[in-house]
């Protein structure tokens, strides 16, 4: 088996490129929640710390004639049970909880952050000891321990809140450890160490900056928690003593007067709540969390192909005509793709990452990612156009007529359910059989896909299977509905080399046994050579060459196919391994930036001016086609795609 020097993923990025950032306020201030939160916090901080300068009354000034007064010009927020001005008390009370919560945050980070850095640096033994200890701390009832602390040392707010910081540093440690470990795994940190940077410098230069966002989120969150706990303690009477005001005690006052002066609960409760809300809004804004939910799946707008003619070859099980897939309101990902697959034959869709192979395959079952849909063309399946079907109609086709197996067998099965459950459910639905019967059929299917001990596998869960085993189960699952067409997206890419061969021969066997038609997506020409009858080579969203596998592989007519073949590290027996594999300079142009003429022209060594204008595919390989205006010239010249010389060509970057 072989793998082209290409990426495995064939996903096309659907996000538009980020516009260049120029002197904008930080991201979190651009979100309404973040901006409002920040403004409110700044206001509260300023008002609290300057309160002695502007408050209209002293905090202990009593106006017994106006007790429990509603807001008025004299008392903007009203008065408390002793006739003291609420605004003055509320503003004065703010400084302590704000400072005390800051103390909690500082202490928590002062302990949690260094410990996380140490644990990440010193490796698993230190990490285990520290992590076990923090787990214990996280399981302690915080408020009750704080009450015990107050019981021993008295209501010393800053000390108590510092103790809270110590206890809660466990949470900081946990989260920061996660970040530190993932940063350290990145290569450049190792590189920095190799280059002789000391561990302190590595931490300062590389690790800490990467933690900034998560740390800011954590800090804002802890600040909010600190405010709530601080207010809770003073609500219980363990905060500043009268006549000093505190938010918690003012709420306690309000609770005593809920019968005769409900207004009293409003100013104090609202200021405390809004301040915590503001801190948490900052958390969300910094974390970049939006409250936006999942976009609802829309019915796909489909440019219907007028009057589907059923001509052509009647034997074709699947015929795709001029299929165009596009991001809704965005670039086209696949354009004008046509191919057909017949029963008992295997079609390979090949090409580099980002050529639209996976999108094409997924459109066959109507399983395109959200925001991507079929924009034109037809997917003719037994006389029906699948591109025009509703979700409900498609659901009747999925599994029963067309089934799919995916790239990553280890994640394709539901980790929460046994293999038996996952097979029995669809079997009962597809074949209308009872539980016992379905279980028997499930075991049969597993034997059919080459599993020696079906009973044991049926009892297993996905995580207990090897990759090859999981892929066999996934194939068995795809066969539960007795489909006529199997779409296999890179079915062997994630598997070990020896297992790849087994899975391919299993597929080959199934094609012959049950007359299955197969569309197999691969970036690996070795796979194509092994299993495919026909092949369609895709480049930048279109088919550039198609025909029988034998013809295309032996006598490639398109320069891109030639280049792929040259880059293929398959070496015939007896031949020496070439010193260096050919690679194709440059990358596949991104959707939305395809040139008008040949999309490969930019990377093609045979390109000429003729290639810059649009043209139509030429017939080739019998029933196939080739999309190259110079195909005939090249064939005449017996052109071959030569290995690139080191350093030559247009800054050719050799892809590893």
């Amino acid at each position, binding site marked *: 088996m072989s793998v082209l020097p290409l990426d495995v993923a064939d996903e096309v990025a659907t996000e538009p490129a980020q516009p260049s950032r120029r002197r904008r306020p930080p991201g979190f201030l651009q979100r309404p929640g973040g901006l409002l939160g920040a403004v409110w916090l700044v206001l509260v901080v300023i008002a609290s710390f300057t309160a002695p300068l502007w408050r209209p009354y002293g905090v202990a000034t009593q106006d017994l004639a106006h007790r429990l007064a509603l807001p008025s010009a004299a008392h903007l927020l009203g008065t408390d049970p002793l006739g003291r001005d609420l605004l003055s008390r509320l503003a004065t009370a703010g400084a302590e909880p704000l400072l005390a919560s800051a103390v909690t945050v500082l202490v928590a980070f002062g302990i949690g952050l260094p410990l996380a850095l140490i644990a990440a640096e010193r490796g698993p033994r230190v990490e285990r000891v520290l992590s076990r200890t923090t787990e214990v701390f996280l399981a302690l009832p915080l408020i009750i321990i704080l009450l*015990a602390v107050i019981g*021993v040392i008295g209501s010393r707010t800053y000390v108590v809140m510092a103790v809270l910081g110590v206890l809660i540093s466990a949470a900081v440690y946990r989260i920061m450890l996660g970040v530190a470990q993932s940063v350290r795994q990145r290569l450049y940190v190792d590189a920095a160490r190799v280059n002789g940077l000391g561990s302190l410098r590595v931490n300062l230069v590389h690790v800490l900056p990467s933690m900034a966002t998560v740390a800011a989120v954590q800090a804002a969150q802890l600040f909010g928690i600190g405010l709530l706990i601080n207010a809770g303690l003073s609500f219980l009477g363990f905060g500043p003593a009268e006549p000093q005001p505190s938010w918690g005690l003012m709420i306690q006052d309000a609770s005593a007067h809920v019968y005769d002066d409900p207004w009293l609960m409003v100013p104090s409760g609202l200021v405390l709540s809004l301040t915590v809300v503001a801190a948490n809004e900052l958390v969300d804004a910094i974390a970049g969390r939006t409250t936006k939910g999942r976009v609802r799946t829309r019915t796909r707008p489909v440019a219907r192909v007028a009057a589907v003619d059923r001509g052509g070859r009647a034997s074709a099980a699947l015929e795709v005509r001029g299929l165009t897939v596009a991001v809704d309101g965005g670039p086209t990902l696949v354009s004008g793709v046509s191919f057909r697959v017949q029963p008992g034959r295997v079609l390979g869709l090949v090409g580099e990452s980002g050529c639209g192979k996976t999108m094409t395959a997924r459109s066959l079952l109507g399983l395109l990612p959200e925001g991507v849909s079929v924009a034109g063309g037809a997917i003719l399946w037994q006389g029906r156009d699948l591109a025009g079907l509703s979700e409900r109609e498609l659901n009747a086709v999925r599994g029963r007529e067309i089934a799919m197996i995916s790239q990553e067998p280890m994640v394709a099965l539901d980790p929460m*359910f046994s293999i038996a459950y996952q097979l029995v459910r669809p079997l009962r639905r597809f074949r209308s059989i009872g539980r016992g019967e379905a279980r028997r059929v499930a075991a049969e299917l597993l034997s059919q896909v080459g599993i020696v001990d079906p009973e044991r596998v049926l009892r297993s869960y996905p995580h207990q299977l090897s990759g090859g085993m999981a892929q066999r189960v996934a194939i068995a699952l795809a066969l539960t509905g007795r489909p006529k067409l199997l779409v296999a997206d890179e079915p062997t890419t994630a598997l070990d080399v020896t297992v790849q061969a087994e899975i391919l021969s299993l597929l080959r066997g199934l094609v012959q046994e049950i007359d299955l038609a197969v569309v197999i997506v691969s970036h690996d020409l070795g796979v194509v050579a092994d299993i495919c009858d026909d092949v369609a080579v895709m480049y930048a969203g279109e088919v550039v060459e198609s025909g029988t596998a034998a013809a295309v592989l032996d006598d490639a007519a398109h320069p891109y196919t030639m280049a792929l073949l040259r880059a293929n590290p398959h070496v015939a027996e007896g031949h020496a391994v070439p010193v260096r594999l050919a690679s194709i300079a440059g990358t596949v142009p991104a959707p939305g930036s395809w040139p008008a003429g040949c999309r490969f022209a930019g990377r093609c060594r045979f390109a000429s001016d003729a290639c810059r204008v649009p043209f139509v595919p030429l017939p080739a390989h019998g029933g196939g086609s080739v999309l190259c205006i110079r195909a005939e010239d090249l064939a005449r010249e017996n052109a071959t795609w030569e290995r690139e010389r080191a350093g030559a060509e247009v800054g050719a970057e050799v892809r590893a």
Partner: protein
Amino acid sequence: MLSYVGRRLALAVGTVLAAVVISFLLVHATPGSPGAVVLGPSGTAAQIAAKNHELGWDRPLVVQFADYLGHLIRGDLGTSLIDGRSIAGDLGARLPVTASIAVLATLLSGVLGVVLGVTAAVRGGVLARVIGTGSGIALSLPAFWVGILFVYVLALQLGLLPATGYVPFTENPVGWLGSLLLPVLALTVGGAAIIARTAAAGMRDALAQEHIRTLRALGTPTWRIRYIHALRFASVPVVSVLGIQFIGLFGGSVIIENLFALPGLGQASQAAVSAHDFPALIGVVVVATVVVVVTNLLLDLVVAALDPKVRTA
């Protein structure tokens, strides 16, 4: 499974031990002594020393700790410095109140939070935005203030529920529930909000999983994909967060009891704190930790039941 349960059990025992050690050290390693507490400001140094000797406070710390542990294992938390009552007996009588509030609030938060979170993840659109914003605000509100709002609206304006007071379960189960409902609702506002966020995120994550695409490719009905497969996947983080929530709600119920004048652990701890009743302080910490730890152990078993990876490990 066994090694998982063993690990969680070890953590539970470790946590209780840590709570005992911390509270013990807190009381013993700081200035102040029970003699001073019992005799008050009028006690002379000699009287205080004599009292401390009588209470065994002058023995080496290790001896006292071993002594305390020995009694603790037999369920003896010592006697109050203030009124000489058995601490275990007093807290035992109060625990049901606090535990009921915390358990009910956790259950209600779980149910409500999951419904809201799953709705947000599945429906999307405006509803998701409303739930997202609403839960962001709700989780920031102090429960004791929400409690006052509820007293005003539900008890005073609408007359639906009693504002304060406690009816024991054995006396009148319906009255019991009625007397707990307001504090439970007050705590549920924040609790449900956090669970809703966890559930929404978990559900979105679950629906984006590769195995969900496998199910779709098999034409599995949407309700089955969502409420059997994705929900099961999302339930593991939700249950874990529920355990953390219980710890918070237990502490929260101690505060909220004060508002509703309920005879729970909150009252006891408030009294112990104000009077510097050292043995009672340690007792409250120990009892609260045991309850929190046992609940989390139970939830660990739920996680094991839900997640085969945990169960078969």
